[in-house]
């Protein structure tokens, strides 16, 4: 069964800079936005862009991620012949190997892609927050008769040296890929979203596998090799909200961004829905003395205290005379009475005893609280 485009979603990374948040959890599975996991944004982009064949490449601590994706139902990807497939490392007659890099992960699953005989392969990763119609990218790719097209976003010039920068001609044809340049010639940063002609990519992947010196990475090896051979590569300019949630600070910020009134990304959009699992928690219950201001609150919450500028996942209790401020509470967190939680990220199922005070400093990284370090904050 032939498909025009197969999506390959890289979800195997460990996300070390997210510290406690990814201790036993793949980064794409980290809770986000009061209801979602990070990968939901990319999976929803696939569904909304009518990319119905998606391979999800997992490797690091995949259990929660696998369970979350499950049969793909929330994304309408529970299909008989295509839909979502989880691709983990495996052994073959010549032995097995772990995924050594982004390109290697795709190489090892060539057989998976080949069975759909696609024209294009879309390579995306499961750790960015954005809403994007990949069909527009594909249209642009076709129009330019490109071999590979990379989605880019304009970043402020003074931050450009933190990104992989694409230098292009006026018609957006790429002539150079500059990884974290000291003196950037452009402010077009790669979003890690690639569309390739499968025939072309297939050849480069085979060559890349054979090379001992390669790190088997799209940005470092495959794209430079293609540029080197003079292939037609184009950039596609994306306009809208896009955020890499690679650190605790950027994770916190991206969550807080959702409270902005005029963000171009909207969870409430009817045209571009963000899909996730929905549990059967009852509606949230707001007690007579509760106050909630500028916050997102999910089902099953029971609010008796005050919640300001915060994101509350499902099944959370906020006790009486308690203040939760500029914080993110993951599912099933129970906050007792007379507590103050300020600028904190509290992880799933943590119970915070009465009277606890957790105070993050204003400009520091927010405090991450889990069931092991909670004791630190409890004053007897």
């Amino acid at each position, binding site marked *: 069964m032939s498909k025009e485009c197969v999506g390959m979603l890289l979800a195997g990374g460990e996300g070390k800079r997210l510290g406690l948040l990814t201790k036993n959890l793949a980064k794409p599975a980290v809770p986000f936005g009061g209801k979602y996991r990070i990968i939901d944004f990319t999976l929803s982009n696939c569904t909304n862009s009518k990319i119905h064949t998606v391979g999800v490449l997992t490797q690091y601590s995949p259990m929660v991620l696998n369970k979350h994706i499950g049969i793909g139902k929330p994304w309408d990807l529970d299909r008989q012949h295509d839909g979502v497939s989880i691709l983990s490392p495996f052994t073959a007659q010549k032995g097995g190997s772990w995924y050594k890099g982004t390109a290697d992960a795709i190489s090892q699953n060539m057989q998976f892609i080949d069975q759909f005989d696609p024209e294009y392969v879309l390579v995306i990763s499961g750790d960015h927050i954005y809403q994007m119609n990949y069909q527009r990218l594909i249209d642009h790719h076709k129009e330019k008769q490109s071999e590979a097209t990379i989605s880019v976003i304009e970043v402020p010039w003074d931050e450009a040296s933190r990104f992989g920068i694409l230098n292009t001609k006026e018609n957006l044809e790429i002539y150079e890929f500059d990884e974290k340049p000291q003196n950037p010639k452009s402010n077009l940063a790669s979003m890690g979203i690639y569309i390739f002609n499968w025939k072309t990519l297939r050849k480069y992947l085979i060559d890349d596998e054979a090379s001992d010196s390669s790190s088997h990475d799209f940005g470092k090896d495959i794209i430079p090799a293609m540029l080197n051979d003079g292939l037609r590569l184009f950039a596609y300019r994306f306009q809208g909200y896009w955020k890499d949630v690679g650190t605790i600070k950027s994770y916190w910020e991206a969550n807080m961004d959702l409270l902005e009134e005029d963000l171009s990304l909207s969870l409430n959009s009817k045209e571009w829905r963000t899909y996730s699992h929905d549990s059967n928690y009852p*509606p949230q219950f707001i007690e007579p003395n509760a106050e909630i201001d500028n916050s997102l609150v*999910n089902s099953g919450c029971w609010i008796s205290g005050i919640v300001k500028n915060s994101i509350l996942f499902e099944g959370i209790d906020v006790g009486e005379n308690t203040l939760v401020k500029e914080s993110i509470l993951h599912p099933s967190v129970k906050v007792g009475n007379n507590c103050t939680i300020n600028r904190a990220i509290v992880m799933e199922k943590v119970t915070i005893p009465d009277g606890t005070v957790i105070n993050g400093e204003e400009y520091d990284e927010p405090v991450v609280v889990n069931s092991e370090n909670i004791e630190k904050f409890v004053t007897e």
Partner: protein
Amino acid sequence: MDSLMGLINIEHEYDFLEELTYFRCGSAVPFAGRYRLIDFTLSNMVNSGVGEVAIFSNRKYRSLMDHLGTGSDWELAKRHGGLFILPPDWNDPTDISRGDLRHFHNNRDYFHRSKANHVIISGSQFISNARYEKAFNHHLENDADVTCITTRVNQFKPEHVSQLRVEHDEDGKIHNLTNDQQNPHVFTGVYIIKKDVLMKLVDECIAYHKDHFFFNGIKENLHRLNVQFYRYEGYSAFVNSIESFFRQNMNLLRPENYKALFFKNQFVRTKISNEPPVKYRKGAKVSDSMLANGSVIDGEVTGSILFRGVKVRKGAQVKNSIIMQRCTIEEGVRLENVILDKDVHISAGQTFIGSREKPFVVAKRKNI
């Protein structure tokens, strides 16, 4: 092995919720922020391990079908077993059955195909979060033909008038089902029956031109059947009028009732939505209320129940009201003791105030 199959029989439930049942059957009316009435009995069955449930529907079942879909949100979309919505569709000219017996007669296949040897039958007006395993064990231990699930009413309300009352022997056998208004031992409308007894009684009822399976098949035969009862002790409510509908919704704003209905046993299952968390914007004031996801609140909400995707704009006040899915309440509106059905739009500046006993009801999709 003894096992249960389910039947929700709404044939005899007429349009008991006035405006709310003009275009849908009662079992499909929204309740408690994100549910429909039928969700409670259907969840109870599924949570008690019942793997196949049929629904005998009568009229206005379209929104019921929309709500239930393939049954997958109740884990009932299976190759074997599952959910069977059975609208009336009979074309046998020789068929002489009447009332709900027509359903039983024309859906014999449903009963025959299943391996289960007992059937749990219910309507949609009894709201509870029950597990039926204990009742089923009681039924088996007493080798009962029928086991009626009952409850004790502490405070009589109008909705109890029509419920049958139970009189039983010392050994637990029911010998009478009456309308004695002083008797607090009330039949919930839920009962378990042996499948072979069911099929036999159906045949008898049809042969004698009867038209109500429970009244004619069971109530009139109490003397020759072993009819037991099992008393359910948890939180429950009957909803059979606008007045009881409004009051029973509001009762759930008492914390102890909310906890008893929703956090005992397993969760009540309902259609999965895909709504984001409630967005409380700057200046929102919400208290003493229950809200479902997808709502966006700028205004003031007290003592109310908001279903999914409700918008309350700046300066609007919603008090003691039930606001169903996707209603929009524009700036400066004041609502009190009001029920808005789905998709109602209230334009800026208006005021509507009903009473607790006679809430002001606005029908679906009205634009006021």
